[in-house]
């Protein structure tokens, strides 16, 4: 069974620095200073065929570096990587024929030509049999609802349409490993939804390995049952998305719906949490440990029509988690 195996992967970059201002620039001409930046530190993970994994981390955490190493674009400083049994930076054609890389911020197709012209070239590059090529064009353009745009110059398409034709081009050869770097960046909500729907369908139909990096939590929530959290180049969590919420969602939100509209915020001990009001609702954000005590106190004062306890949004949990760097 095909899979990705990464063990003890590290990558450092030597980056030049310069003092700000004109004087700094002039000094930089003669005496340039360099710092060594650890983009990845001792990362190990395994991904099985058919899995869809979300890579999450702040900007500069090392997600894209990991993707670039897995795609064979850059060489690691240390560690071992095997993608479908190949070392990716050997750039073996057999592996590259089974792999696709889609970068939300980088166009792969030729701007001055209609997408179909680029696809014809990709067909030859990936040696896609005629029947499969036709089948893929039919299937992908249908699911992405982009049939009418395939003969229009790529530069004349909207951002969402461009992303769709890019996705189509990258998946024409039906890859077994797909790296998606910010596939929904800059797209409007409708286009984001369409891309997510397509990726779900594609995953269900062909079961490739998909590694996805995105800053939109909606992408991750909808598509990736498993997530890998990266902070400062190190892997700090690898597991189910729901587990993060259950295990590390330390805060809870208690909402009381009252009969009457409130005019002033009642006194409440700050150590028990933060109280807010809106119309006839009182909401308290508190820690899991203090939830019972805080609820008792509020229920002694009010007789609510309804009481709801919510987990905080996953975005907040992950943000907390990344800030604390919990192991």
């Amino acid at each position, binding site marked *: 069974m095909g899979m990705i195996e990464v063990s003890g992967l590290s990558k450092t*970059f030597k980056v030049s620095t310069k003092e700000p201002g004109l004087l700094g620039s002039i000094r930089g001409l003669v005496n340039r200073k360099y710092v060594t930046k650890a983009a990845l530190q001792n990362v190990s993970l395994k991904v099985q065929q058919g899995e869809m994994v979300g890579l999450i981390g702040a900007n500069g955490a090392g997600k*894209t570096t990991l993707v*670039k190493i897995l*795609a*064979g*674009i*850059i*060489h690691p400083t240390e560690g071992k990587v095997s993608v479908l049994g190949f070392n990716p930076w050997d*750039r073996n*054609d*057999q592996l*590259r*024929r089974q*792999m*696709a*890389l889609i*970068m939300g*911020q*980088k166009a*792969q197709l*030729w701007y*001055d*030509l209609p997408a179909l*012209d*680029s696809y*014809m*070239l990709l*067909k*030859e*590059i*990936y*040696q896609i049999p005629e029947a499969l090529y036709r089948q893929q064009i039919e299937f992908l353009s249908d699911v992405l609802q982009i049939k009418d745009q395939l003969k229009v*110059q790529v530069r004349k398409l909207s951002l969402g349409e461009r992303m769709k034709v890019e996705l189509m081009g990258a998946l024409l050869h039906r890859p077994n490993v797909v790296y998606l*770097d910010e596939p929904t960046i800059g797209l409007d909500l409708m286009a984001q939804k369409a891309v997510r729907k397509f990726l779900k369908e594609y995953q269900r139909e062909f079961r490739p390995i998909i590694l996805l990096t995105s800053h939109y939590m909606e992408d991750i929530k909808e598509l990736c049952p498993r997530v890998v959290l990266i902070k400062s180049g190190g892997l700090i969590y690898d597991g189910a998305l729901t587990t993060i919420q259950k295990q590390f969602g330390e805060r809870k939100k208690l909402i009381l719906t009252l009969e009457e509209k409130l005019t002033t915020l009642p006194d409440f001990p700050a150590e028990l949490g933060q109280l807010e009001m809106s119309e006839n609702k009182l909401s308290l954000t508190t820690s899991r440990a203090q939830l019972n005590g805080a609820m008792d106190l509020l229920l002694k004062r009010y007789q609510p029509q309804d009481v709801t306890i919510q987990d905080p949004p996953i975005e907040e949990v992950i943000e907390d988690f990344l800030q604390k760097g919990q192991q």
Partner: protein
Amino acid sequence: MSWPVRVVSTELRKIIAYRSDFWVNFLGQTLIQLFIARALWQSIFESNGQTEIGGFTLGQMTLYYLLAPLTMKILMGENIGFLSREIYDGGLNRYLVWPLPPLGYKLLTYLTYSGFYLLQLALLYTLGRLALDARPYELSEFLRLLAGVGYVFIAAIGYFCLMCLCEMVAFWADNTWTLGVMLRFVAAFLGGAFLPLSFFPEAARNIIEYLPFAAFISGPVNLILGRSTPAEALQSFAVMLAWLPVLGLAVKALWKKGNLQYTGVGM
């Protein structure tokens, strides 16, 4: 259809994607250059009161200045700076994930542009020759033109290697646009695009004939114009051929080293 053929076909479609740009590129630019060269040399010939300068009549000189920039255009192929720019902005990533040799792909796209400009050269030279030189057009001239075109095509591979060597410095220095411009200037100057090499001092000519630059412009242009003997043309072509494996090996070594430095930024 194999991928190299499809690459050529795709690049040709890119060349002709914009109608007005195509015609300006195909005719306009060359006609302006030709007009300026003709006017300049006409006034030089008139002020000197001579019918021949450096072994060139006015018609031949005009033809030389028609051929030299067209040959330079063939050498330039696709826009200069393509590789360093892609190293700089991460555009190279696309070629690294495709199952084909990236530099092979680059060479093919370059040669497609060169091939297109070769056609332009053959056509415009034939028209220019008929218009500017009163002598009858003979079969031997046509054969020289064909040989010259083949010569330029091989020389273009040499120029591509030199250009790659300059551009690949971007793996270490990020932005190396100026190096490409310098190469273009040096190749044009030592190749004889600004002034025929016969105008250079003999000592300089003796050195230049062992460098690849003479084969870029002066060698094929003199062959087409019938200003060099077959032996002379063959000698400059042999020098070019001798340089090709050296340049090819240097490109291969630098590419391998440079790839270790590549960060794929901009992704």
